[in-house]
């Protein structure tokens, strides 16, 4: 039973200290500071406590106490998320799963790995490499982001058109319910009986449970991978080329687009050899057997030439392939160098709407007087417009947020969605109203109630309060902190 919170901070610390090392209970503001935000540093909030348990029993004990006293719990991985999904609650506990960083088992024969939630995404592929295997989803933050966070956000990456999102690459989840009961969902087969609870938990942003163990699928490392770079003098031509590649029956392992701003920033940063006069650049990676790659690369190269690319380059070796990708992978920090701050959006659109959306975005850019650079998972329609701004100019972040909101509404208008892979968190909670009706949002609340009726797990994230609710209020806009990432 949930009792109304009747514990003071000091009492909670004393209670937790009976079974958790007091050094791992952070109560002072200075040490708590790194936990005040996630990768979206414009949204900050200091928590009541930060706790870093070391054992499952400790996590369970903490959850039971918080449930009993109605204390909010915000689970946290590496804090690389981009939607303020791990922003603390001022009256709550940040439950860091950083200490759960062990790969428990790699089964090379069955091609799966069992990992704790604090394991970094890239660490799995590194550990599996000796068996010729790797883990598919590869978000740009893969060097730092953790699997627990990947499950919470259903993370994607540049290879998801062919290899899927997190939800396609996990088999089994163990998690604590808000009451501290340990449950196991899925199995080591490819599906389980009945409703798909693994899918429901994946992407649920820490609102339904605290994941403690994940069994992931591992894939054979492709025999060969090659990338084709194609430069175009218009976004329209590049967009059409993407459609043509897919119409030819080729599913590239990755198909990425950058616009002029992004190309020039990335080239300046990475010296990848991108043509500086291009208005759009495509990177198309093909992987598989040597024969397959050879056949597809020929087709892709020819198609790009026929579709009006003014420069086409095929990577001739691993070093060249890595260099071509380096530009794309460093596009965000590169854009960070041409502007004091940037704000990354994450809408997804049907590919056919690309030219229209980019044109409309340009109009908005002029209207708001803010530059926008575009990096785009072209294969699966996932846009990452980067709005360039200066947080030190009063009012500019607010203007940026408004611009961002217009972009997301535009994505919904053309049949897309407000977030493809970053999640809703606090950041996009207001835009949920543009994608979903009140009835649909009420259905989401009913799902939340089925797992967490008191609403103490990661409160205030993911699903907005209904407009007709008495409690509905405009979310307070946090003050810009000048953050950059």
């Amino acid at each position, binding site marked *: 039973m949930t009792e109304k919170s009747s514990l003071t901070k000091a009492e909670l610390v004393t209670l937790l200290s009976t079974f958790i090392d007091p050094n791992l209970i952070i109560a002072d503001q200075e040490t708590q500071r790194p936990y005040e935000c996630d990768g979206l540093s414009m949204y900050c909030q200091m928590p009541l406590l930060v706790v870093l348990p070391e054992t499952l029993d400790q996590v369970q004990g903490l959850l039971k106490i918080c449930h009993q006293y109605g204390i909010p719990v915000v689970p946290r991985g590496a804090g690389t998320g981009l939607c303020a999904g791990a922003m603390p609650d001022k009256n709550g506990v940040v439950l860091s799963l950083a200490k759960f960083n062990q790969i428990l088992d790699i089964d*090379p024969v069955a091609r799966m790995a069992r990992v704790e939630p604090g394991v970094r995404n890239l660490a799995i592929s590194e550990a599996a490499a000796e068996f010729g295997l790797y883990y598919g989803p590869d978000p740009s933050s893969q060097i730092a982001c953790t699997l627990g966070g990947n499950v919470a956000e259903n993370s994607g990456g540049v290879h998801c058109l062919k290899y899927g999102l997190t939800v396609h690459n996990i088999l089994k989840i163990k998690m604590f319910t808000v009451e501290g009961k340990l449950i196991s969902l899925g199995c080591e087969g490819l599906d389980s009986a*009945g409703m*798909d609870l693994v899918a429901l938990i994946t992407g649920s942003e820490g609102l339904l449970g605290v994941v403690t163990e994940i069994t992931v699928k591992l894939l054979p490392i492709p025999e060969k991978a090659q990338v084709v770079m194609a430069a175009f003098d218009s976004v329209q031509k590049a967009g059409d080329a993407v459609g043509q590649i897919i119409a030819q029956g080729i599913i590239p392992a990755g198909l990425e687009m950058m616009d002029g701003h992004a190309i020039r920033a990335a080239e300046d940063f990475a010296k990848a050899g991108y043509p500086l006069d291009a208005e759009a650049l495509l990177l198309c990676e093909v992987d598989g057997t040597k024969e397959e790659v050879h*056949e597809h690369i020929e087709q892709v190269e020819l198609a790009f030439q026929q579709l009006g690319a003014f420069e086409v380059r095929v990577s001739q070796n691993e070093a060249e392939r890595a260099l071509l990708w380096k530009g794309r992978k460093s596009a965000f920090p590169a854009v960070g160098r041409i502007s004091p701050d940037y704000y990354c959006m994450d809408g997804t659109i049907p590919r056919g709407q690309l030219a229209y959306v980019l044109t409309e975005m340009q109009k908005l850019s002029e209207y708001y007087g803010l530059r926008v650079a575009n990096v785009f998972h072209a294969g699966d329609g996932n846009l990452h417009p980067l709005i360039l701004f200066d947080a030190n100019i009063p009012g500019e972040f607010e203007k940026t947020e408004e611009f961002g909101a217009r972009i997301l509404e535009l994505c919904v208008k053309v049949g897309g969605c407000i977030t493809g892979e970053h999640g809703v968190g606090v950041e996009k909670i207001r835009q949920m109203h543009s994608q979903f009706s009140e009835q649909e949002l009420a259905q989401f609340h009913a799902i939340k109630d089925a797992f967490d009726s008191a609403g103490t797990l990661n409160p205030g994230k993911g699903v907005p309060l209904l407009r007709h609710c008495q409690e509905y209020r405009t979310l307070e806009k946090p003050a810009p902190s000048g953050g950059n990432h």
Partner: protein
Amino acid sequence: MADISEELIEQVHHARNAKSPLNIIGGGSKRFYGRDIRGAALSMTEHRGVVSYQPVELVLTARAGTPLVEIEALLNEHQQMLSFEPPLFEGRATLGGTLACNFSGPVRPWGGSVRDQVLGIRLINGKAEHLRFGGQVMKNVAGYDVTRLQAGALGAFGIITEISLKVLPRPAATATLVQEVTMAQAINLMNQRSRESRPLSGACWTDGKLYLRLSGTERAVEGTLKLWSGEELHNADQFWQKLREQKLPFFNSKSELKRLDESAGRLSAGEPLWRFTVKPSSSEILPAGDWLIDWGGAQRWLRGNYDMQELEILAEAAQGQVSCYRGGNRQIDTFHRQPEVLQLIQKRLKAAFDPEGLFNPGRLYSWL
């Protein structure tokens, strides 16, 4: 080719007022699956038709009552396909039923399942609200994944009215290698081949033979044929077609033929057919049993009269689950047992969508 969603909503209103549960029926091809239930039949067959299809977007949207054969014919015109190779059941299988049952064919470990490819749905819940979840784009993490939650739920949450899913290009070439091996050897070989970066698209062992299918570019398929052991099987499509439709001799033994359902030409009841979904590398389960191994070892079919509880213990030891797929007693639970805490969560979830228990009560579990 009509949109009858308004009538479907009316039927839900009526069922609410009359407190009378509904039994949602598409093409009726999967009546054998799950528990036998009562309830007023709610037919989806009129609610059919492809709503939108843009080959370049790799996305198709159709009403739930659309037969899969219609969808496949349309995709075929554009050299595309449903990547999960679902059973068509003499043309009666519908898109909605396929999602509700989460049925996928031999390609599943490599091509994904219907659950993997579904992008969005429209659903009428127990309050007769017509809701939309997910969408028509490849990536969408706004809100909970209500779309994939439907896969395998056997209609427990409401009436799925419309489905958007990802489709894929057809492979340019395909070929099959066959070799005589024991079941244990086959399981080893399937797992070994799955570890190679080769265009594997099917791995099945039945009747003492291992069948490995390759699909991809011509050069990739040819190259692999030269590397791997086994004889190339001609007319291999027939084999995979029969496996996909569960019409191989394994699925129709002499003893079962006596109990053929005349209208459908397939089993209606009788000898139980068990479906194991297990860790693909698990060693033989009950070596003396009558088995067919599919999905590279991850899906295993067993025929015969067994005690379900005993099979559940064996399945759990193989890190998986078992269900009584067809035949046997359909009054009792046919899917793998669920711990009490999961039963409670599933009951609450069901109530979140269907507070009055109108949709297919008891079809998935006796307690749901």
